[in-house]
C-alpha cells in the first residue's frame, strides 16, 4: 500500500528534482570552478575562490544594502499608499468599478515599458514632465537617475506595486464587519480609534500577504534597473549583479557564486518573513 503511494508520487518528485534540484546542483558546481567563457583552458576546480572574490568585492556590500533598501522602500510606499487609496476607494459608491480598473492598470504595464515611460517621459531632466513642472516654478530640473538612482527606481517600482497592495487591502476592507463598526460607534469610539483598534488588526493578515508576495518578486527586480541606470554601485541589486557577472564579464563561475549567494540571502529573508507572517496569522 505504502509502496504504491510512493510509486504514484514518484513522477511529481522526479519532475521536482529535474526542474529545481538539478539546476541548483549544476549552479553549485559552476560556482566552484573557474569558468570564464572568453578565456581558453578554463574549467579547473578552484574551491571557494569565486565566493571569496565576490564577498571581498567592495561593491558587494552596497549591492546587498540596495537590495534591502529597494524592497523596504517599495513595501512602505505600496502598503501605506495602497491602504490610503483603499480607504478612499471604499467610500466611493458611484463608478467604483471603473475607478478600480484605473487604479489597477499600472500593474498590467510590463516592467521595462513602465521604466522606459518614467525614464523618458517623466523623469528626463531636459524634456521630461517633471522638468517642465519644476520649470513652471522657476526651479532647476532634478536629475533623477544621476542624483538619486535608487530612490528613482524605488519610485517606479512602487508605482507598479501600489495597485496590488491597494486591491488586496480594499477587498479586505470590504469584508470588514459593519455591525462591529456600528457597535463601536454606539460605544462612542472615534473614527481614528475604530481605524487603529479594529481596522488595522483586521488588515494584519492581508498586509502580511502583501509583504510576502512583494518581497518574493522584488528580490528578483531587474528590468527597471537595466532600463534606467544600467547598474552601478548606486543602484545594482543582487539579481543585477548576477546578470553583470554572466553577461558583461562572461564569468559563469562568478555569476553562479553570486546566484548561490542570492539564493541563500532569499532563504534567510524568507525564513524571517514566514515567521513574521505566521505570527500575524496566529494572532
Amino acid at each position, binding site marked *: 500500500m505504502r509502496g504504491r503511494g510512493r510509486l504514484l508520487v514518484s513522477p511529481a518528485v522526479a519532475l521536482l528534482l529535474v526542474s529545481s534540484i538539478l539546476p541548483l546542483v549544476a549552479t553549485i558546481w559552476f560556482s566552484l570552478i573557474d569558468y570564464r567563457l572568453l578565456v581558453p583552458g578554463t574549467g579547473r576546480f578552484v574551491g571557494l575562490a569565486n565566493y571569496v572574490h565576490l564577498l571581498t568585492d567592495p561593491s558587494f556590500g552596497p549591492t546587498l544594502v540596495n537590495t534591502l533598501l529597494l524592497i523596504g522602500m517599495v513595501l512602505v510606499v505600496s502598503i501605506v499608499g495602497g491602504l490610503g487609496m483603499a480607504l478612499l476607494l471604499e467610500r466611493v459608491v458611484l463608478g467604483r468599478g471603473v475607478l478600480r480598473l484605473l487604479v489597477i492598470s499600472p500593474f498590467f504595464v510590463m516592467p521595462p515599458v513602465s521604466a522606459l515611460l518614467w*525614464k523618458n517621459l517623466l523623469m528626463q531632466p531636459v524634456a521630461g514632465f517633471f522638468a517642465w513642472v519644476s520649470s513652471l516654478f522657476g526651479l532647476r530640473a532634478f536629475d533623477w537617475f544621476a542624483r538619486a538612482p535608487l530612490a528613482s527606481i524605488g519610485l517606479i517600482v512602487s508605482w507598479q506595486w501600489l495597485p496590488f497592495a491597494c486591491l488586496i487591502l480594499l477587498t479586505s476592507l470590504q469584508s470588514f464587519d459593519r455591525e462591529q463598526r456600528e457597535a463601536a460607534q454606539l460605544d462612542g469610539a472615534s473614527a481614528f480609534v475604530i481605524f487603529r483598534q479594529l481596522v488595522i488588526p483586521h488588515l494584519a493578515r492581508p498586509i502580511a500577504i502583501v509583504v510576502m508576495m512583494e518581497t518574493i518578486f522584488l528580490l528578483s527586480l531587474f528590468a527597471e534597473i537595466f532600463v534606467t541606470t544600467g547598474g552601478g554601485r548606486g543602484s545594482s541589486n543582487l539579481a543585477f549583479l548576477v546578470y553583470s557577472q554572466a553577461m558583461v564579464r562572461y564569468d559563469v563561475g562568478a555569476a553562479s557564486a553570486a546566484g548561490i549567494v542570492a539564493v541563500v540571502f532569499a532563504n534567510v529573508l524568507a525564513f524571517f518573513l514566514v515567521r513574521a507572517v505566521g505570527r500575524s496569522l496566529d494572532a
Partner: protein
Amino acid sequence: MRSVWMLLPALMLAGCSPHRTGQTILTVATVNNGDMVRLKELGKEFERTHPGIHLKWLVLEENVLRQRVTTDIAIRGGQYDVVTIGAYEIPVWAKQKWLASLDDLPPSYRKDDLLPPIRAAVTYQGVQFAAPLNGEGTVTMYRTDLFSKAGLTMPATPTWEFLTQAAAKLNDPSHGVYGLCLRGKAGWGENMATIMTMANSYGARFFDEKWRPQFDTPEWRRTIATYVTALRQSGPPGAVANGFNENLAMFAQGKCAIWFDSTVALPFLSDPKTSKVAASTGFAPAPDEGLGRAANWLWTWGLAIPASSKKAAAAKIFIEWAAGPGYAKLVASRDGWLAVPPGTRKSLYDNPDYRRAAPFAAITLRAISAANPNDPAVKHVPYVGVQYVAIPEFQGIGTEVGQQFAAAVAGQVSAEDALAEAQAATKRQMAAAGYYK
C-alpha cells in the same frame, strides 16, 4: 557532459529549420545599425543572383547581439554562420580560435583596397578574420553660427583646452543650448570610449607593460578633471544618461554647441532631413594636445564566420558579395552615394561621385587614417585598441570603471575618488584573471 547539454538547443533548432533541397541556409546575426539593416534589405538581391544560398537574418541591438553570439560561440553552439563583430571582438575571438580565417577570399574582394588602419583592425597575427563593412573615427562637430556669434574661430586642429573654454562661453541653458556634449552613459562602449580616447591624447595609457592600471598617474588625473569639469559646467543636464544616440538627437535639434564623437554622426548631421542645424554644422579633426597622439579612435563592424559553422564556403561567397567593392555600387545605384557604408575602402574615397555627394568624406578619411589601434598611446602599451583594450576582461573592467566616472559626472563622488576606485577595481579584476603571477 556539459557540452552535451549545451548542444541540445542547437540540435532542436537544427531540427526545426526548413531545409529546401540543394539550398544552403546561412544564418546571419547582425547589429541593428543603418548599414546592416540596408544590407539585410539588399540581401534579397544576393539571393536572386545566388539561388543556391538562402539567408536567414537575426538583427539585434548591439549588446544583445554580443551576448547571444558570445555565448553561442563559447559553447560551440554553431547557430550562426555569419556574425557581425566589432573591432574589440576580432583579436579576442581570433586568439580563442573561434573564427575562421578569411585569407582565402577571392581576388575580386580586393583586400589591398582596404584602408590600412581598418585592415589592421580585422587582422590578428597576420591573418584576416573579419571583412569590414563600415569604419569610423572621431571628429569634433560644432555650430558655426554660434561660434561666429560669440566671435570664436575653430582652429585647424582644436585642443581640449580650447574646446572646454569655448563650451563654457557658448553654454546657454536658458535658451536650451549646452556648451559641450560628450558621452556620459556608463559602459565600455559608451563613456569609456570617449574617456579613453581623450586620455590617449593627454599622454595616458590604460595599462603599463606589466598590466598595472594607470589611473593613479597625472595624465589620467588631467583627463578626468577636464572631462568631469567640462560636463558638469557646460554639459546638458542628465549627461550621464547620454550615449551616442542621445547626443546625436540633441545636436540635431540644436541643443549642443560642440560635440566630440564618432564620424558615424556626419551623414545624419549633414542632411537637413535628419538635422535641424545641417546648414550651420562645422566639422574639425579630433582634439590634439600635441603629445604625439590625438583623440582618434577606430571602430569597425565586420562580417566573420564562427569556426563552428559548417557552411563556411557559402558564408565566404556571401561575405565577398557584402563586403567586396561591388556592394558600394549596388547601394549607390539604389539609395544614392550618401547611403554607402563609409570608412573601409580607399576606392570609395577616390570616387569623385562619392566625394561630391558626401561633404564629410575628407574628414572621415583623415580621422580613420589618423587612428592607430596597434600603438594607441604615447607610451608603450601591451595591448591593442584605442578606446578599448582587446583582452577578455575589458568588458567587465570598462563597465565598472565607466560607472565610477559617470558617478563623478553626476556628483556622487569626486574625480579623485572615482580614479582611486577605478584603479582598485581594475587591479582586483586583473589579479583575479591571473595577470599578476
